[in-house]
């Protein structure tokens, strides 16, 4: 099995030949080969080269999304008029555009074929579909969830205090954000002739109470995932989310990429029969350190979450790490992750 095939089997809550290893792709593909991140973002040929090089360097693991029109986290916010700042070695960023809460009244849902960087993402997607060697999967990019996008265009602290001061405006903003993402995903579907997956990243649900998640998060996430029934639906949240685990899953995703701050044993016990778990080695304290320690931690992760299938080994937050750390994780999966799992 290829790493991608293993990932897809695990996503169906089944056992592949061994526990898959997969990483969330990011703009750091560029810096790994000495590319300027702005060039990686805007030059589709360089983007493709960088992503393929990562596959070639690490044939033992999958990158999800696969080859994709990665524009970092700024594309959707740019469609609302947010200015994008590019950096040489860092992902692009943008600053909020809504200063006063009343301005939300005049915000319109962007057109993915016209506004901000979204048409460029669609153009890049077409380019990648046409130019990627057939042995690689081309996917749509991971997109921002409704609360993440709301905080990007209004500011995180402002959205969080608006939940108390102006809840009606938070609803307005998140409604527009969710519709933006549905329209964007549909456009990606149209230009590709049918995408295989929908990948939503939203950290904010991990930062808010169950009550606020029910009010400002759940209905909007559910609306997005319901719009893409029939595709593989993946959700990433790199904040602790133990307080809303079951309700998160009720929004309708099938693969959960989750934080190292979640207890793996408890997460497996509560969600293991419902969704595929993808994570969650501590990304800084462990993954950037001693390869031997990485092997021990990965062994324990496999022991806790591997049996029965539906598990993908990875870091829990962040993206990759040094080459040696990735190699150690792949080796650990090869050594301890063969099904049936027999780790002591």
């Amino acid at each position, binding site marked *: 099995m290829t790493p991608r095939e293993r990932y897809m089997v695990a996503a169906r809550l089944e056992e592949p030949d061994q526990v898959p290893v997969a990483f969330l792709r990011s703009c750091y593909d560029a810096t790994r080969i000495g590319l300027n991140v702005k060039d990686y973002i805007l030059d589709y040929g360089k983007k493709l080269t960088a992503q393929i090089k990562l596959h070639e360097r690490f044939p033992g693991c999958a990158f999800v999304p696969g080859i994709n029109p990665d524009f970092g986290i700024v594309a959707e916010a740019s469609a609302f008029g947010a200015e994008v700042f590019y950096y040489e070695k860092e992902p692009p960023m943008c600053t909020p555009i809504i200063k006063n809460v009343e301005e939300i009244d005049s915000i319109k849902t962007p057109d993915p074929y016209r506004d901000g960087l979204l048409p460029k993402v669609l153009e890049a997607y077409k380019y990648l579909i046409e130019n990627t060697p057939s042995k690689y999967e081309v996917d749509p990019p991971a997109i921002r969830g409704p609360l993440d996008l709301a905080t990007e265009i209004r500011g995180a602290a402002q959205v969080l205090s608006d939940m108390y001061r102006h809840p009606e405006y938070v609803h307005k903003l998140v409604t527009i954000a969710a519709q933006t993402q549905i329209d964007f995903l549909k456009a990606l579907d149209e230009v590709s002739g049918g995408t295989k997956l929908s990948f939503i990243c939203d950290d904010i649900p991990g930062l808010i109470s169950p009550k606020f998640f029910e009010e400002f998060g759940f209905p909007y996430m559910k609306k997005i995932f319901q719009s893409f029934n029939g595709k593989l639906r993946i959700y990433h949240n790199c904040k602790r989310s133990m307080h809303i685990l079951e309700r998160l899953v009720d929004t309708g995703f099938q693969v959960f990429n989750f934080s190292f701050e979640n207890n793996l044993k408890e997460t497996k016990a509560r969600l293991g029969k419902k969704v595929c778990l993808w994570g969650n080695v501590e990304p800084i304290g462990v993954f950037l350190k001693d390869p031997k320690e990485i092997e021990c931690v990965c062994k324990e992760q496999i022991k806790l979450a591997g049996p029965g299938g539906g598990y993908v080994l990875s870091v829990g937050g*962040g993206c990759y790490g040094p080459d040696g750390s990735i190699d150690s994780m792949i080796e650990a999966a090869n050594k301890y992750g063969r099904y049936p799992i027999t780790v002591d």
Partner: protein
Amino acid sequence: MQDAKLIADLRDAFVNIEPDRATELLKKAIEEDISPKEIIEKAIRQGADEVGRKYEACEYFLPELVMSGEMMKEAIESLKPRMKAEGISTSGNVIFGTVKGDLHDIGKNIVISMLSVAGFDITDLGVDIPPERFISEVREKKPDILCLSSLLTHTMPEFGVVIAQLKENGLRDKVKVMVGGRPVTKEYANDIGADSYGRDAYEAVEEARKLMQTG
């Protein structure tokens, strides 16, 4: 006794995140001539401690922390004229900013709220601040503490750049440097030569107080 009840109600309004009620009770406390020192000590700081306890116990989450911080910061602002008139000094002067290449501000804003509640006078430089700006602000404003924030692992090295430039400009021994942000560890802070590190907003306040004591 009536004053004590008013102060307790005000503290509860902060803890229970009731902004309108807190505004009303604060106005009443000022009208009844309760000293700003008492309001700050017994309503605002005790309220902040209780909010922190609830956050640690996962009873409260980030919106509660942000909102209570905003409420308390606004209360302190409205008390400032009387504090000045009564000669109540601040706990110390702080310059705060998120380092170059990093546009995150939520953690910074929470720490600023908590430091304000603790009586520190803060200059918030904002986000994506180049080292040269930190240097010029330190030279001009002569703060007690320079707080540097970063949420991204690849912007953390900017801490070291700022500290090196403080040294080059003969300012390192004139200001204490505290660093923080989600990926930052105490070990990292030590390695780059920072004076202090705050794991979260509450620890940052404690560390700032300690820095002021060490002089």
